[in-house]
């Protein structure tokens, strides 16, 4: 006799697959947004902006799937927490896509002329944020809270880099008002990355919730 939860388990597994695929798409968008910035590639920025529709569609698909599971399987306990977490995580990943679009739009404005300083800290922030996104979704699927703990520590580093960049760019602007246009755009990009890290931290909170039943801010 087949396992009584076979259909249900397959539905839950599909939800995981969709979340991972959505995460990979958002991660690729973020990578390409930074590449468009670094290489002043307007065509790549436009192409990346167009891909936001794919991420949005994943979110709607996950929402529909979650509703179907609730309606047909009446999940309880960890299953229930997992379905609701998937909904919340999909919403956070969608925001990663939205901020990648914002970075692309800013990159297009910055592409008009060479940058007054080489990009160092922004690519560093991006690398950390991409890793955080991977870790958070990996933690969701593998139920590994240690990954989540590491991810939250990474958020502190992103916050630190953001504050450092903020101060540095403000100093540039004070010394040379000619730099204000570019510095403000760079400041915006660093702010977008910092916000992305916060959304990924929310994902970590949901993973913690699924595994422990406790919903709380993991930062203090």
């Amino acid at each position, binding site marked *: 006799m087949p396992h009584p939860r076979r259909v249900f388990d397959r539905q839950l597994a599909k939800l995981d697959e969709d979340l991972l695929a959505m995460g990979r798409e958002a991660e690729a968008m973020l990578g390409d947004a930074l590449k468009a910035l670094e290489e002043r590639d307007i065509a790549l920025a436009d192409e990346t902006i167009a891909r936001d529709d794919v991420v949005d569609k994943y979110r709607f698909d996950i929402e529909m799937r979650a509703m179907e599971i609730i309606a047909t399987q009446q999940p*309880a*306990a960890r299953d*229930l927490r997992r379905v609701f977490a998937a909904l919340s995580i999909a919403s956070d990943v969608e925001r990663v896509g939205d901020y990648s679009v914002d970075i692309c739009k800013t990159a297009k404005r910055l592409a008009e002329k060479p940058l007054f300083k080489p990009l160092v800290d922004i690519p560093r922030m991006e690398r950390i944020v991409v890793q955080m996104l991977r870790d958070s979704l990996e933690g969701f699927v593998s139920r590994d*809270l240690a990954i989540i703990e590491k991810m*939250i520590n990474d*958020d*502190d580093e992103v916050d630190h880099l953001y504050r450092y960049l903020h101060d540095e760019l403000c100093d540039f602007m004070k010394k040379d008002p000619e730099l204000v246009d570019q510095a403000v755009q760079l400041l915006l990009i660093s702010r977008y990355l910092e916000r992305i890290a916060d959304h990924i931290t929310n994902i970590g909170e949901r993973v913690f919730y699924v595994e422990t039943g*406790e919903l709380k801010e993991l*930062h203090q």
Partner: protein
Amino acid sequence: MKGEKMASMSRLQAESQVENRIGGPPKVEAQGFSFFYGKTQALKSLDLTVPENSLLTIMGPTGSGKTTFLKALNRLNDRVPGISHSGSLLLGGKDVYDRDVDVATLRRRVGMVFALPVPLPMSIYENVAFGPRKRGVSSKKRLDEIVEEALVSAALWDEVKDRLDSSAHNLSGGQQQRLSLARVLAVDPEVILLDEPTSGLDPISTLKIEELLRVLSERYTVILVTHNPVQAARVQGEVAFFYMGELIEKGPAASMFVRPKDKRTEDYITGKFG
């Protein structure tokens, strides 16, 4: 920015235990109560308190001891050969197994509704009046009052008030089950036990019974037994999970179905066994 420091996971997990208790004086109390059929132990040192005027749903798989617990409460097991028990099972502070307990009185105080409604082969009116008559109520006026009150409380009055003299067998399954409840209510019980009362009913009749139990639990102590976790979740109130004769976990339905404390409860309500 979300703050500065990451708190340790272990501390967060330790803090995550939240207790939720319901007050009210105890109506039913099992204290180290065990029950045996010969050498088979059906209940294992059960400790369980049900406050007055509350609703407790007992869920568990077949053989978990939930029906044995109900039957012990009004001593329906008394004639089963080879039974024995230890510990205490208190009703209003007095052990139902004390020598001076009159079983007939106990069964009036603790009414029982079974899985399949069994209407007596008589009219709707006579089905409800049967218990009070046996208790010596003979005044027609008083019997009329009792029958109406019981049928109103069982949410059946509006459907049958114009045909009280027709046979109870003409009622639908859901109506017959509410008639069973009216018969219990007619003898003025303190505790109402229900053993899988909706197992043969359609979804609408099931919801009517569940709603009725919530209303009745404001005036009576109601104990519902079900093998269906979804019903336990829907009925709300407190839920106790029995497994292999043990009480594994008890708490408000809302928290038990979102974050059960015991792995066995989790596995049962998520359909991994049972």
